[in-house]
């Protein structure tokens, strides 16, 4: 499997695959090929629960092709629990900002034609 396919497979199980640098310990999303901090190429796979809180988001009403049928929907940047990592994804069933205060607990729940799916917990 490619790097992207591996991340997708874990996302489908509600998990987040990450890469921990074996030299300096810095944690990355698993699409990293070299360490951001020390430039090392050695990584250990760490599988996280995919839980976190909403760092920021938007509710999209004018969508790119293929997403019109889902509007309105949220694009969310999730702060992953107990890490400095963030990951973006698609959040269904959000219509107004009142539905999603910044800081709302949320979790990766899958992957499909809407990319990585993140849902409120």
């Amino acid at each position, binding site marked *: 499997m490619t790097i992207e396919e591996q991340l997708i497979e874990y996302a489908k199980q509600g998990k987040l695959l990450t890469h921990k640098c074996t030299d300096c310990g810095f944690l990355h999303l698993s699409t990293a090929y070299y360490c951001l901090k020390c430039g090392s190429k050695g990584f250990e796979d760490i599988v996280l629960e995919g839980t976190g809180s909403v760092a920021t988001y*938007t509710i999209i009403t004018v969508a790119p092709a293929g997403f019109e049928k889902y509007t309105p929907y949220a694009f969310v940047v999730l702060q992953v629990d107990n890490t400095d990592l963030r990951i973006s994804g698609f959040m269904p069933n959000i219509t107004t*900002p009142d539905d999603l205060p910044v800081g709302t607990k949320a979790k990766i729940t899958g992957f499909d034609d809407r990319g990585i799916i993140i849902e409120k917990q």
Partner: protein
Amino acid sequence: MTFVEKVCVLGAGSTKYGKLSESIADITTQASVSAIESAKISPKDIQASYISNVFGVADKQVHLGPVLMSRLGIPEKPSLTIESACGSGSVSFREAYANVAAGFYDCLLVTGVEKVTHTGTEWTTTYFAYCSDFFYEGQAGASFPGLFASMARAYLTEFDATEEDFAAVAVKNHDNGVLNPKAHMQKKITIDDVMNSAVVASPLKLFDCCPFSDGASSVILCSEKFAKENGGDYIEVIGSGRGGSPAALQGREHLTTIPSTKIAVADAYKMAGITAKDIDFAEVHDCFTIAEIVDTEDLGFFDKGQGVQAVREGRTKLNSDISINPSGGLKSKGHPIGATGVGQVVEVFDQLTGKAGARTVKDAKIGLTHNFGATGASCAVHIFQSV
């Protein structure tokens, strides 16, 4: 770095920005001809061209360089097309700058162009999303308004700012754009107009967003020696900087700062030997209202979180503390993405050579251009001085 030559902008020209009926090849040539005529040179003086363009495929013409050079009667001269999303124009300008500064060429044509409006809102929105880190952003339904709306939401959460403050940026830029005959949106608007416009990606509304535009802009870049011996009015490039940021917003340490801007401007200030306080006016990348506020902080004009206060107090209006986007900016002048970075240089050239008419920044000597690609994943900043 050793610079062999001082680099000058000798001539500049743009088509009107907006919905244009001509082909991409036609508008590319029109802008180039206007720059050549402004420079008072012959196409035969041009040694090579740098073309910035992103979506040529949408108008059935990639490999624009040879087409342009053939129409200019110099098909034997080399050309290069550069893509760096919405920052293509400034990146192309920078590459041309480096070649003249190094003494490799004496006279270059730099032309930026985009032709997309005929594809319609849905497909333009879709094409633009291809400029994101697609695996994480575009694939999850993020549009560009959506990505900047995410920055806007973070700014509203972190700082004392309101959606009306964002709207004030749009109102200010439209006030300037009304004075620019080449602008796409030559129309005054009010805070209420912005607040009542349709939501595109909350908290951003239609009038928080720049329009999709067609257009082309062009400049002649040359050595000081060439400018003195061959041409008309010219200005000097005194600073040039480039920088990068994590491609996806999620990878940024702060969601309300664009790292590439800070890196690029630090380099440009250092080269010019000046600070933010020395800038008389700036053309900054206001693709969305929130972007201009973030830009003015990242460029060092205001402290972090204070950009919004500066807008509230009118300190960025034409001929106030620092005139931001006297051209109308991307918001009102328009945003033909491959042309924008070059178009900013056209505005600075016009300002510093007394050709800016009713939107002239009074007594201006030093102008700055700031242009980035996508959400600021790539950026170039240039500083210019009148001679």
